[in-house]
């Protein structure tokens, strides 16, 4: 018995309070989403009446185009994830495998550029896209395609570094063998690197998807139109500091918006955690 106390019981005793701390907000948000009154007020920590009113509001209230927001987020984040990984992978391959002048300089610049607080160059991005809007209204300020372009630029640095780490770990012998067989760099890339790297590319794309899905500041500056907003901006503006007013539908919305991300994350957990130890911090 004392042995059990010494070896096992304390572990449970440590974990359970933390478990409660972890679950508390999650439990509260579920509770609020099922609360028929939809208010912030907690009358009881045990649900006495369950209703799906809030979910109903979410789908049927024209003032909360929840599904449109979700669709916007998925389109923007999906596009950014796929394209940024496709472009980033090629750059990472070049930085890892090919020899050229200015490689060290390029990598150092890439590193340095990432350290600049991107939010602070926001005004410049804003001015540029405002000017682009003057001659190309389809990709300038206020459009999702413009936002996607800006995200793509921002995603380059991180993705190239992450992917370079992976390319470095593929044995050089593979390339050399292929080169002896007459393969060009482009062929090595498409026929050796891409097939080998597909799982990693998928994970980096997932991380990129989650990061973009979470992005708030740029999206809020870019998308002022109700129907073009992403879910992050939509829900934030909807709750807009007035927690007591729209709490119920917000709770329902945040649950529905989080579920896909949580599922993606948990299903790719093993790979993501490996990537984390390699030095990336999820936003």
């Amino acid at each position, binding site marked *: 018995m004392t042995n059990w106390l010494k*070896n*096992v019981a*304390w572990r*449970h005793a*440590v*974990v359970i309070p*933390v478990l409660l701390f*972890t*679950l508390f*907000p999650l439990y*509260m948000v579920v509770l*609020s989403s099922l609360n028929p009154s939809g208010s*912030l007020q*907690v009358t009881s920590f045990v649900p006495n009446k369950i209703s799906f009113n809030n979910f109903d509001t979410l789908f049927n209230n024209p003032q909360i185009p929840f599904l449109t927001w979700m669709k916007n987020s998925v389109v923007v984040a999906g596009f950014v994830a796929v394209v940024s990984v496709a*472009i980033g992978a*090629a*750059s990472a391959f*070049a930085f890892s495998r*090919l020899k050229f002048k200015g490689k060290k300089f*390029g990598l150092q*610049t890439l*590193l*340095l*550029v990432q*350290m*600049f*607080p991107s*939010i*602070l*160059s*926001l005004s*410049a*991005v804003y*001015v540029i896209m405002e000017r682009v809007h*003057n001659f190309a209204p389809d990709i300038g300020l206020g459009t999702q395609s413009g936002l996607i*372009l*800006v995200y793509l*630029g921002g995603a*380059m640095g991180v993705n190239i570094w992450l992917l370079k780490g992976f390319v470095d770990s593929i044995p050089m012998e593979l390339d050399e063998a*292929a080169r002896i*067989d007459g*393969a*060009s760099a482009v*062929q090595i890339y498409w026929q050796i690197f891409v097939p080998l790297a597909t799982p990693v590319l998928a994970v980096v794309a997932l991380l990129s998807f*989650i990061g973009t*899905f*979470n992005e708030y500041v740029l999206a809020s500056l870019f998308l002022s139109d109700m129907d073009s907003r992403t879910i992050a901006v939509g829900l*934030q503006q909807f*709750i807009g500091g007035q*927690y*007591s007013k729209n*709490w119920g539908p*917000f709770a329902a919305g945040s649950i529905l*918006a989080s579920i896909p991300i*949580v599922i993606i994350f948990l299903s790719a957990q093993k790979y993501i955690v490996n990537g984390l*130890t390699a*030095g990336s*911090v*999820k*936003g």
Partner: protein
Amino acid sequence: MRLFKGSSLAVLVKIILLTISISVLGTLALAAFAHGESEIGIFISIAIAALAVTYLSKISVPMKFFLPGMVLLAAFVVVPILYTLTMSVYKYQTGNYISKSEAITQDLLIGIQPDPEGTTFDMRLGTDSNGDVAILASDLLTNSYFISTTKNKIDLQPNQVTLNADGVAEGADGFKKYNSSQLTKSADEASKLRFVYKQDYFLLTEGFDLAAVNSQVLSYDSATDTFTNATTGVTYKDNGRGNFVNTKNKKDILPVGWRAPIWFDNFVKLATDPKISGPLVGVFIWTVVFSSLTVITQFALGLLIAIALDKKIRGRRFYRAILILPYAMPSLMSILIWGGMFQTEFGAINTLLGTQINWFDDPWFARAAVLVVNLWLGFPYFYLVSSGSLTAIPSELAEAASVDGANPRQIFRKITLPLLLQILAPLLIASFAFNFNNFNLIYLLTGGGPRDDLGGQVAGATDILISYTYRIAFGGSNQNLGLASAISVLIFVIVASISLYGVRKTKVLDEF
């Protein structure tokens, strides 16, 4: 035998993609030049040239791989950063946004004055016989009428106009009155026009049916680069800092200024102006405290859990699945949810504790709330990485120490923890750097507050450098992008030093 052959399909795909990109970019470049955005046009043209040269020649194989990435990075990251860096040596703030020539135009537009009598006429907006915008004005005192455009003025005889019951001319020969939809569309445009009156005086429309006599009092002389006020005789000179200033009274400046280089004044201000350096130091201290406490608490809790779950106990998988949920949730949603829970009235935290604390109105409670929320958001990350690292520490070390008579606490403090810290140091540094700029958390949870808005306070109690700078640049009515850029440079230097130190530790740069 050649295993690898160039396929004609690949070449075809390449050509198609290249054609599409170049034609799209070409259209954009042309549009940019056509709208006077020549800098953007030049940038796109260079990109087109680079694309064509890279993919149609064999000049550089590496370029084929990284060119698209580099173009995007240059356009949306590097150029904005360079722009921000440049702006740190400019006076660039509310009142000083535009270029000098635009500012002169604006000052001229504003530098007008009504005539001494304040004469106004009833008028109707429309077009004259040439189709130019015109006004039909009626002087009810003298029963005289005239049509005026920006070019000339035609006096009319009473028999040439149709009057309404009030004696205001509604129509005239050679004048076509706007209907109401035309009027709403054009009134704003017409208000910017100067209609001919007499000599130095001209007419400005006010609303839909009034025209006022005005004259230009400010005049600009480009030879001496000065403004002169015709009424007061005062001259205004370029002060070299983005404004025209009265030569006799330094406080009298023309309302519209421009962005002008002021070299290191923004940086000097940061160091010496007590109104700026005072809050900045406070914000800086809180930023460091916030990031340090965040990393320490997150790491401590994560490590504690990792140690507790280091052994196969019952329910471990269940625990693990729950404990990483905060990390799997989109952080933005979590922050907003916590924001609701910390509300004073009806918030779950106060209900649970049975208190009535104004969490976001009291500096210390707000800071505590920020740290608690960030702990919740981040400890799972350190739990994951610590538990991974714990398994990487060879168990022989602990066993050997145990044989030598060390108790578990000694083993942890003398062996496990130092080794762990060594392994995780780069991640701890990275996390510090990340939280140093954790804009979303502060902005969405407390907005940097509480702060005394009425007292004109810019720095809130929970503001970290980046949210404070964001407020200087974009918040409120007095935006100062020049100063914000200067602080950005400061943050950049700090974060870059921290990160470079971290990078040295991980030795990534050794591979070059």
